[in-house]
């Protein structure tokens, strides 16, 4: 399974989870099968006028993610795209490291988001 983490910086497992999704600085994709953690920059998207959430969702789809984890919110458009792509969303991680977020996720500490924030 591939898991996407929205992050504020590019520092491997120590990177801090971003509170925003569409306008996160970047994403890490962790593949449980290969145990690889790969960074994807989202900086171009950070300044997009509209549709940042759609683009960010597209990154998750392209990486064949099953799960997306953010620190605080998920916009309506990103939600719609991810939901249609059957990608599960978890938004309560807060500003912790990717490592902590991953272990919390594995321990079932987060609830799946079933509706967008707006």
């Amino acid at each position, binding site marked *: 399974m591939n898991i996407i983490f929205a992050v504020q910086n590019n520092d491997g497992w120590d990177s801090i989870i971003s509170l925003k999704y569409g306008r996160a600085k970047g994403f890490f994709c962790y593949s449980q099968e290969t145990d690889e953690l790969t960074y994807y920059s989202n900086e171009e998207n950070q300044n997009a006028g*509209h549709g940042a959430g759609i683009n960010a969702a597209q990154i998750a789809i392209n990486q064949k993610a099953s799960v997306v984890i953010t620190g605080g919110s998920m916009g309506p458009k990103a939600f719609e795209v991810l939901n249609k792509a059957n990608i599960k969303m978890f938004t309560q991680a807060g500003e912790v490291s990717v490592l902590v977020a991953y272990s919390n996720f594995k321990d079932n500490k987060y609830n799946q988001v079933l509706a967008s924030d707006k």
Partner: protein
Amino acid sequence: MKIAIASGKGGTGKTTLSTNLAAYISETISNDSNGQVVLVDLDVEEPNSGLFIKGDILKDEYKYRATPVWDSNKCTLCGECKTICNFNAIAQLPNTILIFSELCHSCFACSELCPEQALPMVDKRMGVLKHYQQAGNLPNNDKLTFIESRLDIGEISAVPLIKQTIEYVEDNFSDEIIKIFDSPPGTSCPVIETIKDADFVILVTEPTPFGLHDLKLAVETVKELGREFAIVINRYGIGDNGVEQYCLENNIQIIGKIPNMRQAASLYSQGELLYDKIPAIKEQLVLIYQAINRINR
């Protein structure tokens, strides 16, 4: 003649000036059998000139713009379209293309470049245009026409509706008729669409440091577009003389100074025009109209 009334940000008196100037001009030309003035509210996200200018509705029509519709039978899921779209309006799921028509700018790129012709453009409603006659506050005033467009809720781009509204005005009223465009606030695409073909731009500002800051941005925009322009100071008397100094140093003409008066604020809040009740404001409109006529010649 097209006169755009704009400002660096909202709430500086753009609508006050647009509505009062239009009504005042319609009154001064009331004896001229060919005279006419058209007020157009192009602040389509929040049109509010209509609160001050009423009239009999003549026409009420929906406006449409083209957006792509996905044809699943033809699509091979090549992904071209989502890469082409500059406005993030297209997402590709494993078996589906999702189109967010409210983000679409109707540029036709995806439709034309789709190798399978799987994205035909189809008209979608974006807003409503209303055309009023005998507007204004004078009985039997047939000199003032009022047109406003309102963007549908959820639509993100105001530009196509502004464009179509200006086209409607051009089609229905000849060049020599004075047209006053109440522009959207700010300096982004919707404003540019409004002022790029104007014969004259009036920038409304307040005489405060914040007003000056926004005014400078607006002046830059107007200069870049190569438009002739001048300044009207609203709520003259508050703040400082920074705006006047700036205009002096940069050789920018100030064609009116609308005094700050408590009476004006209370009339405004009741949806009333000001110039027919406050002589000091009418005096300024006289000056502004003279300046317009000088340019018109």
